[in-house]
């Protein structure tokens, strides 16, 4: 039966936004925590730690996000863990985000002048304090614009969760498109909603980039 594209359909698509936002938020926060570990490992003085982090980043940046989500979704049951699509995409996107954020923040950490670390060491600060009080605040400041840029990429990336069967913005648009047979309206509305979320963020990222470019 073909349904009409009414207020119910619009609300159904709108309801998808909350899942897109929640998924983005969880993946961004989780990716932030693991990304920090990746960035610290990547800039560590221990060679094996550096190589492992570099390999992790290379693998996630050299394979499609869709395949990463499939591997988590079909891979976890193989290792005896039954997961829902929600858990699978959250884990997949978190791993994905940690590789990209790790690489962005590695750049930030390495952009902090060496003299800063050396001075901190000369003052007798230990690694934890050196990083927490001296290097990371400066590194994160330098990386804030590309971090916002990645957040936009991540929000767009959550749309792939729909292929694994998780109902978020894209999936609800697909459902409405197939029940009303108005794909132009359904995908157009979904696209518009993504744009409303991502465009201000992109602009914000650009402003940050310009502000920091002037200062340096």
């Amino acid at each position: 039966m073909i349904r009409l594209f009414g207020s119910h359909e619009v609300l159904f698509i709108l309801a998808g936004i909350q899942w897109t936002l929640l998924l983005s938020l969880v993946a961004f926060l989780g990716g932030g925590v693991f990304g920090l570990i990746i960035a610290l490992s990547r800039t560590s003085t221990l060679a094996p730690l550096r190589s492992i982090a570099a390999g992790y980043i290379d693998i996630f940046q050299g394979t499609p996000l869709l395949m990463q989500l499939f591997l988590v979704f079909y891979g976890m049951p193989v290792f005896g863990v039954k997961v829902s699509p929600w858990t699978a995409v959250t884990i997949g996107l978190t791993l994905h985000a940690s590789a990209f954020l790790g690489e962005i923040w590695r750049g930030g950490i390495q952009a902090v002048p060496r003299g800063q670390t050396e001075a901190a060491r000369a003052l007798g600060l230990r690694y934890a304090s050196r990083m927490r009080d001296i290097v990371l605040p400066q590194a994160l400041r330098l990386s804030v614009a590309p971090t916002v840029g990645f957040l936009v990429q991540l929000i767009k990336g959550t749309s792939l969760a729909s292929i694994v069967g998780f109902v978020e913005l894209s999936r609800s648009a697909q459902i409405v498109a197939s029940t009303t047979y108005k794909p132009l309206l359904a995908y157009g509305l979904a696209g518009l909603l993504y744009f409303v979320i991502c465009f201000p963020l992109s602009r914000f990222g650009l402003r940050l980039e310009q502000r920091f470019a002037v200062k340096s």
Partner: protein
Amino acid sequence: MTYKFDFAALAPHWETFLRGCWQTISLAAIAVVLGLAIGIVAMLAKRSPIRAVRLSATSYIEVVRNTPFLVQVMFIFFGLPTLGVSLSPWTAAILALSLNCGAFAAEIIRGGVEAISKGQVEAGTALGLRPLQIFRFVVLKPALRIIFPALSGQFILALLTTSIVSSISAEELASISQSIDAETFRSFEVYAVATALYFGLSLIFSTAFKAINRIYFSYPVS
């Protein structure tokens, strides 16, 4: 753990995997070439003196950059037929990928063009170079040198993005993996192989691009 890995079940399908790789490379190459052409037009339009032209170029670039590729593909493949334009999955995939690449290429090309200063061209004239030589050595090569790393990054990105056109069942590595999965029921093994193939492809191309960059574009910069 009771699961037994069975990669041998995929052995009869190696030719299909190989075909998928080739289709993925073709899609990415076509998309980047067409995307470059679109990008040049969009970049020129963005610098046009006519406000409407500038505005439409900017809207095109911003809309593409701020919406997911999946929605763009769906919009083109499922949406356009309702307007009377029917596209095969492969054509829709190429159209969507090229439009997507074009928006990102426009910004990359703008960076290259803005880096060539007028004085540089005048210096070429002063040295007695003919117009064609000026274009080749003074304009094209330095501009290419500046945008080459970003452009090769864009190709790798296109290579990975092509996987999303599997959602409209255009044939490439991700969609043939889904068919092999449906046939063998070895989901994990199939996607592990596909992921490894994607990784191999991006490794091969990024190594090749780095070599090209080293051979053709590494000369001392002033």
